[in-house]
């Protein structure tokens, strides 16, 4: 008996350990495809011993609908800022245990306190960007355009059929409101009517509404002007040097994609480990280098590709910072008016 005890003990210990390893076992992570480097996930597995799977989804809207309809057993997902408040309101997210996220201290000062989640109770930034527009200086008259939404919403006649807008009203409505000096969350039908008129005039000049393939269209010079995310612009410019990214003076929307833990996540512990691990400068920088978007971690610039960090489209210059407009959640009434504009625009 006496001799057996250590054996029994070691068996118990071994079981306990393997149990612990299993508890640290797995993480179900969902993100857009090609928005997270596969090598980084392998590094995470090597660093922590947690086995991670990466699933894909195509849009914030479908992610929200799926979570609302009661689906998805993901541990970490990456919705944009515009969806965080809604998800919190609808009780779809878990509150962080911040004692497990010491790396929150690594957040750059501008990202320490964000309107949509002031205390980082539910979300931590992954990557962020801006939704401006770009043009091909070789194709536009005079080779240079105003830093304004003007050339985009009322393009010069030569560019008819050479301008593309993003195919989403949440991308198109706010800049139209900025340009006209109207509150983007307006509930006044008369103001919305003005935006509607601006968009229908612009529609005649457009080649198409399309959010896919923006990089190729600009890189190939197929069109002269494109509403675009800055990371996509960066990739297009790598292939065509005459492209220019515009920070319109009337204001430009920013987006921040965030790590959150949905209600119903099964591996909450691992989710915290993952989110904390991602806030280390070298890890988040690897994600930036892969996806070509900037991040919110101080000190990450040391690990970022120089070409990426030096691109003013990615790393917003000081004098343009005041043009950035962070997301604002509009009332259901205002959003219903937006949907109406979109339906009428494309009826």
């Amino acid at each position, binding site marked *: 008996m006496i001799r057996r005890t250590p054996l029994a003990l070691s068996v118990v210990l071994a079981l306990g350990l393997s149990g612990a390893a299993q508890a640290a076992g797995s993480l179900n992570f969902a993100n857009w495809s090609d928005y997270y480097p596969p090598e980084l996930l392998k590094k995470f597995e090597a660093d922590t011993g947690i086995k991670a799977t990466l699933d894909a989804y195509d849009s914030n809207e479908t992610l*929200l609908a799926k979570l609302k309809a009661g689906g998805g057993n993901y541990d970490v997902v990456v919705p944009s800022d515009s969806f965080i408040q809604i998800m919190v309101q609808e009780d779809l997210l878990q509150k962080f245990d911040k004692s497990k996220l010491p790396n929150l201290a690594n957040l750059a000062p501008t990202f320490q306190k964000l309107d949509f989640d002031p205390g980082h109770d539910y979300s931590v930034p992954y990557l962020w960007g801006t939704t401006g527009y770009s043009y091909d200086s070789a194709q536009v008259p005079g080779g240079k355009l105003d830093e304004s939404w003007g050339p985009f919403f009322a393009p010069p006649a030569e560019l008819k059929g050479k301008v593309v807008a993003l195919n*989403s009203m949440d991308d198109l409505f706010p800049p139209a409101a900025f340009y006209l000096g109207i509150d983007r969350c307006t509930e006044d*039908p008369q103001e919305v*009517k003005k935006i509607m008129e601006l968009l229908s005039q612009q529609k005649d000049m457009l080649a*198409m509404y399309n959010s896919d393939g923006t990089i190729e269209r600009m890189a190939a010079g197929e069109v002269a002007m494109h509403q675009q995310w800055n990371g996509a612009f960066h990739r297009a410019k790598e292939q065509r040097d005459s492209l220019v990214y515009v920070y319109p003076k009337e204001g430009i929307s920013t987006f921040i994609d965030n790590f959150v833990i949905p209600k119903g996540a099964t591996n909450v512990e691992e989710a915290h480990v993952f989110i904390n691990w991602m806030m280390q400068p070298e890890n988040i920088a690897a994600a930036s280098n892969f996806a070509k978007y900037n991040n919110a971690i101080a000190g990450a610039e040391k690990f970022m590709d120089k070409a990426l960090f030096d691109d003013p489209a990615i790393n917003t210059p000081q004098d343009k910072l005041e043009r950035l407009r962070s997301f604002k959640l509009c009332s259901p009434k205002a959003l219903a008016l937006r*949907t109406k504009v979109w339906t*009428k625009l494309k*009826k």
Partner: protein
Amino acid sequence: MSTPRQLAERRQLLRRLGLIAPGMAMLAVFLVAPLAIMLLVSFLQPGEYGGVKWGEYSAEAYISFFYERDFDDNLVFNTDYLGIFQRSFWLAVATTVGCLLIGFPTALYLALQSEKKRNLLLFLVTVPFWTNLLVRVYAWMLLLRNGGLVDGALGVFGVPEGSVGLLYSSGAVMIGLLYSFLPFMVLPIYTSLEKLDWRLVEAAFDLGANRWQALKRVILPLALPGMLAGATLVFIPALGNYIIPELLGGGKALMIGNLVQLQFGSGHNWPLGAALAFSLFSLVLLALLFNGLRQRGQEVRA
């Protein structure tokens, strides 16, 4: 008292119902029941940012299909949705007709090959569809765009480059839709035609029939069930398709499919989305009912 004949017929009917039962059970549990929930959703108030408010009933979604408040706050008849329905409808009709015109001769050709070759060709019809829709559409974009391969090929024949503007036109949408739906027409017609006894056609010719008569009297009647099945498999899915018009047509006009999708996404109006789907549904049902009545009328007359 039932006669033995009636008993046998009843047993026969039970046997047939037994054959139908497994498929029917599957669809009843996993489609009809979920759709019943959806029907309920269409009569509820929308939640603020998607979802519904359970227990708060309203017929708002169906009313807003016909009436809306315009920007000047007047209650007006809403033509937007009807317009979108009409556009999708005609596109689906055109796709179905196009598929019939190309699909029928192709199916006839397949049916007239030797048995070995027949199955091989049949597989060849479906091989391209092992790739994803999006990749195929991208390949077409590459072919059709200005300076693309088709444009270049036309250039060889002296058509100036970029003058045709193939991509982002209704022509491109049509090509994309035909490409996606042709197998759904070819295969059902083929299955009907495959049992064609060519000697019947020969006999018709021997009796002095010309090509059109042989086609009309012998081949078409045999192909008809396949053509109907194919038309169903093309028309209804084409009605709901929106990805191809969106990508190849330039996305300037909504289709039923993305109108419904919009309500479940950034429109945050699930009841309206559900109501639009059920309206579409009733329209098709009415059309089928009308067709059924007409057929029955014809049978009675005959």
